[in-house]
């Protein structure tokens, strides 16, 4: 599996401390998505590391209600959802550094603690208009 290459953290240990449920909402596509299967395998593997993590799968083409609700444009996509949807998404196969980021986002969503400074949180809490942040990354 992609995720085994150069994995720098002990995912099992990281995820063992989760005390709140997190759902990985996975969006796949039946045709023309070579990376959907490896992405789903990583999602399943991450979910297997904690009883608190569950997986829901939807189809980008067929499940239009969920695609719209989560604002998904492409597959593979993962929405990291806690008690509520926090708007955190991963597009593509989450391997390498991205696997670490996925695990970290699960921990953030489960804890509800952003880890940001009080000053930063105050600035962000004052936002009243939509902000869409896309971070382009590579696995290495």
């Amino acid at each position, binding site marked *: 599996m992609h995720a085994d290459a150069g994995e720098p953290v002990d995912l099992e240990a990281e995820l063992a401390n989760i005390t709140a449920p997190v759902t990985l909402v996975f969006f796949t596509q039946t045709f023309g998505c070579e*990376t959907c299967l490896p992405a789903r395998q990583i999602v399943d593997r991450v979910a297997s590391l904690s009883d608190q993590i569950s997986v829901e799968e939807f189809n980008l083409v067929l499940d239009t209600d969920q695609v719209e609700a989560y*604002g998904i444009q*492409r597959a593979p996509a993962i929405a990291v959802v806690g008690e509520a949807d*926090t*708007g*955190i*998404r*991963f*597009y*593509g*196969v*989450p391997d390498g550094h*991205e696997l670490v*980021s996925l695990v970290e986002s699960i921990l*953030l*969503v489960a804890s*509800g*603690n*952003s880890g*940001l*400074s009080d*000053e*930063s*949180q105050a*600035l*962000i*809490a004052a*936002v*009243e*208009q*939509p*902000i*869409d*942040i*896309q*971070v*382009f*990354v*590579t*696995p290495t």
Partner: protein
Amino acid sequence: MALVSPHITASAVAAVEYPDLVRQYRVTGVPKTVVNDRIEILGAVPEASFISQVLESVA
């Protein structure tokens, strides 16, 4: 940031899998952050600087 505000969404996009987006947003290196399709932040920057640049998108 997405965790703190219901108005903020944050996506990590695997650049190699979406060449159309890479072209659209002229991604020549990673990490590259694009905010509301108009603010661009190159590389990893300190928290305060990152947040101030992101908030410029709605200033």
